[in-house]
């Protein structure tokens, strides 16, 4: 090893605290990228492997009663690789010691062999014996939510008759990663179950011997999903088929997709910001750190070292710091990535996990950091190397300080002398002061953008649960009912008000773009389920025409006044042209909205409803639950309060978990920046400060001169930091917007306060370390030697 390399390692050891602080900044950026992209990739690959191994279908359809032979004809559709036909029916559950109404989706299992598609991963126990009506397998999350194990019993209303079933096993399925009950906004494992039963048994209960009511199709690679769907629809139509749909409209897949999308959007937005900010900060810091080496550079030149060797030496120095940072960030990022993958894997009930290797991330992050560091070093060296060695070896000539104000104004009579020194120092190095401020502002900004997601989640909850969907309960019916059912519901115990809701599944199309949505019709002046616009005011629907989510309008490329094509997927199945009369800024899903009378006219039907929204007397809810459970027509009951809790447990948990991790890493970066700032200022001014000590200034006074500048720059950096944070939050918000959920850009004051507090705390901690340094300042040595 050459002597210069020995110097390199010793310098790194001597400056370990600063090296570590810079490495932390690099590491923060690297860790964010490795964690976010790595965990997203792992989850994505896990999902792909899960779908692959357990044969998740591509196209799904339901029918009333289709003969088994039809399955073979479906298999003959060009592009179809495999078909799985089965019986699937909704049912209300009655679970012992659980008063809230729960519902389930009953799915048949073939009596011999495995299903062709959507195979089960059995977690415990066994599959039901053929023909045994009482034996069932339930989805594991439901069993876990109730503490059920094999042998546990509960009741279900199947085909209008209450039956008791016994759990013989628990299972997971790629089809039911997320389970959202009818009418519910959120998945709820306690109140919604997937129940698998022997085909023979279920066929017996529903009188579907030799028939099926649901079908899944696996496509051949390259097959047209649209083509298969339209042929499938044509085949099922005579048997009460409902419009077939692809994975995109399969509830579980759509949810999982959305959650992974959010992770992906976060990982596409925050880590690059972090990495760029870290690179910039590393650049700033190393410029100053290398500039401090001026006299050593001069000495090496005097000893006959070529400029290129000296530049290489300092490149190695900063490269070593970057390598330490990349290793640090890589280790922490990978560890966090594993933890996050495992956490979300558990959350999604994946039966296994695939950890994706990501060497490209290290290369990307490392290369970016190294380039930033090298440019920083070069910037500092360019100045120093240009100097003749005789000049470089001397301390820099006294900088030209100027009077800030005309001589007639005695500034020192207005401010204290330390303050004057600070002001002149800032004025003397305006670029450096500006960059320092920018660095700290960026630290604040990345904290703001990490923290703001919490605000938006809270806002979303407020908006959805307290402004828009204000009902306590939504009762969904298995089949649509004549409107007088609303009166019937109104008479149930505890019901205060009830409003009808008519929902029609449709395909909406404009040009080549098509989406499957639900048009909901609501009575004029509906007060429970309201439509809220961007200004948070309730929207009154026009008597005719269709209003759609602004997001849907954006997807379709239509505005109010344009006309869209709508395939009605219920009843007479007509295709109609409809004018868009309004777009509504809403935050969940994409949907169509109409006046209920207009919708009925469109459907050419008598007054029917699918569900009833109601408000409830909290004191009488037990009576209400009991009454609802005995209504055979009810397909599902959604409880708003429970839904809110589940929202917090699902979406919000996911977003805030990531946000917390990002906040932690942002705090590490912030600390690294602030500490380095303070530490380098001390080195740059060591001689000046030691001279002051010799002149009789106390340690406290010297400390004040140094820290005053740090304090001022830290505070000045905050407002631009907030502004940049808001800007980054806007980018994040825009990237987070998806078909299942959008967020409003809300940054609470408290978020700014927290971000600033973290930076100020970092400054205080740095000040404590600096204080220790000043206490140990060797006056004679500092003044005599030129280190």
């Amino acid at each position, binding site marked *: 090893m050459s002597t210069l390399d020995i110097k390199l390692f010793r310098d790194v*050891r001597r400056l370990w605290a600063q090296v570590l602080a810079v490495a932390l900044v690099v590491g923060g950026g690297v860790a964010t990228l490795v964690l976010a992209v790595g965990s997203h990739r792992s989850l994505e690959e896990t999902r792909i492997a899960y779908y692959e191994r357990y044969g998740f279908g591509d196209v799904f359809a339901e029918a009333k009663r289709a003969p088994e032979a039809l399955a073979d004809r479906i298999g003959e559709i060009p592009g179809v690789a495999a078909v799985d036909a089965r019986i699937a029916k909704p049912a209300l559950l009655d679970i012992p010691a659980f008063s809230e109404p729960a519902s389930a989706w009953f799915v048949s299992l073939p009596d011999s062999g495995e299903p062709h598609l959507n195979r089960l991963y059995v977690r415990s126990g066994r599959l039901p014996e053929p023909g045994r009506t009482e034996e069932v397998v339930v989805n594991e999350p439901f069993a876990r939510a109730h503490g059920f194990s094999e042998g546990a019993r509960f009741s279900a209303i199947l085909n209008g008759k209450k039956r008791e079933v016994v759990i013989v096993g628990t299972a997971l399925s790629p089809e039911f990663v997320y389970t959202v009950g009818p009418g519910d906004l959120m998945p709820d494992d306690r109140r919604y179950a997937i129940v698998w039963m022997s085909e023979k048994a279920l066929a017996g209960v529903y009188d579907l011997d030799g028939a099926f009511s649901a079908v899944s199709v696996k496509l051949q690679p390259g097959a047209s999903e649209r083509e298969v769907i339209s042929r499938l629809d044509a085949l099922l139509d005579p048997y009460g088929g409902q419009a077939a749909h692809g994975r995109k409209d399969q509830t579980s897949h759509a949810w999982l997709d959305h959650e992974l999308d959010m992770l992906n959007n976060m990982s596409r937005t925050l880590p690059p910001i972090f990495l760029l900010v870290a690179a910039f900060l590393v650049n700033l810091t190393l410029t100053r750190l290398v500039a401090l080496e001026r006299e050593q550079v001069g000495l090496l030149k*005097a*000893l006959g070292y070529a400029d290129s*060797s000296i530049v290489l030496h300092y490149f190695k120095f900063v490269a070593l710091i970057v390598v330490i940072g990349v290793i640090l960030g890589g280790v922490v990022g990978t560890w966090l990535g594993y933890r996050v993958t495992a956490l979300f894997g558990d959350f999604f009930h994946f039966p296994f996990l695939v950890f994706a290797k990501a060497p490209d991330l290290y290369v990307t992050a490392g290369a970016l950091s190294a380039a930033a560091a090298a440019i920083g070093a070069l910037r500092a060296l360019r100045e120093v190397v240009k100097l003749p*060695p*005789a*000049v470089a*070896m001397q301390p820099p*000539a006294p900088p030209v300080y100027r009077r800030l104000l005309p001589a007639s104004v005695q500034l020192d009579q207005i401010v204290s002398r330390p303050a004057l020194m600070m002001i002149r120092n800032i004025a003397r190095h305006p670029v450096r002061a500006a960059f320092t401020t920018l660095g700290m502002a960026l630290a604040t900004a990345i904290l703001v953008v990490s923290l703001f997601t919490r605000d938006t989640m809270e806002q979303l909850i407020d908006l959805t649960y307290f402004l828009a969907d204000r009902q306590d309960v939504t009762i969904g019916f298995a089949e649509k009912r004549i409107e007088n059912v609303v009166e019937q519901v109104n008479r149930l115990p505890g019901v205060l008000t009830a409003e009808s809701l008519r929902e029609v599944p449709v395909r909406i199309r404009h040009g080549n773009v098509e989406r499957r949505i639900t048009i909901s019709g609501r009575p004029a002046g509906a007060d429970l389920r309201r439509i809220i616009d961007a200004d948070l005011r309730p929207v009154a629907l026009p008597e005719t025409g269709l209003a759609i989510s602004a997001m849907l309008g954006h997807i379709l490329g239509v505005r109010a006044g344009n006309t869209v094509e709508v395939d009605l997927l219920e009843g007479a199945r007509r295709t109609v042209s409809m004018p868009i009369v309004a777009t509504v800024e809403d935050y969940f899903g994409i949907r169509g909205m109409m006046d209920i009378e207009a919708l009925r006219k469109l459907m050419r039907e008598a007054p029917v409803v699918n569900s009833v929204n109601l408000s409830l007397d909290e004191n009488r809810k037990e009576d209400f639950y009991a009454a609802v459970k005995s209504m055979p027509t009810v397909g599902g009951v959604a409880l708003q309060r429970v839904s809110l809790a589940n929202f917090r447990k699902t979406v919000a948990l996911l977003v805030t978990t990531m946000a917390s991790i990002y906040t932690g890493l942002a705090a590490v970066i912030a600390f690294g920046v602030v500490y380095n700032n303070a530490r380098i200022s001390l080195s740059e001014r060591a001689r000046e400060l030691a001279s002051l000590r010799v002149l009789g200034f106390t340690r406290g006074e010297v400390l004040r001169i140094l820290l005053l500048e740090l304090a001022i720059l830290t505070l000045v950096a905050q407002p631009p930091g907030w502004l940049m944070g808001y800007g980054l939050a806007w980018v994040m918000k825009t990237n987070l917007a998806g078909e299942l959920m959008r967020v409003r850009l809300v940054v609470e004051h408290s978020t700014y306060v927290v971000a600033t507090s973290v930076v100020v705390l970092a400054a205080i901690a740095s000040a404590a370390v600096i204080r220790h340094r000043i206490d140990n300042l060797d006056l004679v040595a500092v003044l005599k030697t030129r280190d």
Partner: protein
Amino acid sequence: MSDTVFTAKGLTKTYVSGEVKVHALNEVDLEIAEKEVVVLLGPSGSGKTTLLNIMGGLDRPTSGRLFFRDLDLTDLEDRELTKYRRDHVGFVFQFYNLVPSLTAYENVALVTEVAKNPMRPADALALVGLDERMHHFPAQLSGGEQQRVAIARAIAKRPAVLLCDEPTGALDSKTGIRVIEALLGVNRQLGTTTVIITHNASIQEVADRVLFFADGRIAGVRKNETRREAAELVW
């Protein structure tokens, strides 16, 4: 000319330091012979260090010419100046300028690694009487010892000239004398031309020639018929 190491003609240097213009060197003419020991005496700011820096290739004159043997230093590129320093010049500074993170041995090795025909670092250190302490860091050495490490570092590459800027300036008399002893020993054994800047008038006794500087010019020259040994010095 063969026994002349340096020839200066009308050497002038003007500095701009902050907002002040300083005439550090004003039309200096000078010749220094092989193996000669020259002492430069004079008050602060009289131009001694500027001359030394230009002779050492650490700085360039504003005008005039300076030759090292037949080589015109005034026109050299940075790269050539670096090569000149590396091949021919040894420096000793007032504040030693050792690399604090390297041991005495490693500080010397820093130079021998890039030199053409160097001594072994241990031999160079032995020459200045520091072979016992070569694995100590600068912070573990006294000022005199540090300066002797600097001398060992300067001579390890067997330079043609040894340029010393106030080598005893930061030392007490006893250690100062040991440092001068080391410099003279090197001059005797290796025949290195040695130029010493000092404020200390007693050191002039050891020189072949003394140049008195004032206001950027050579104000007087004295030739010593006999050089005194360092041990005979008192200050």
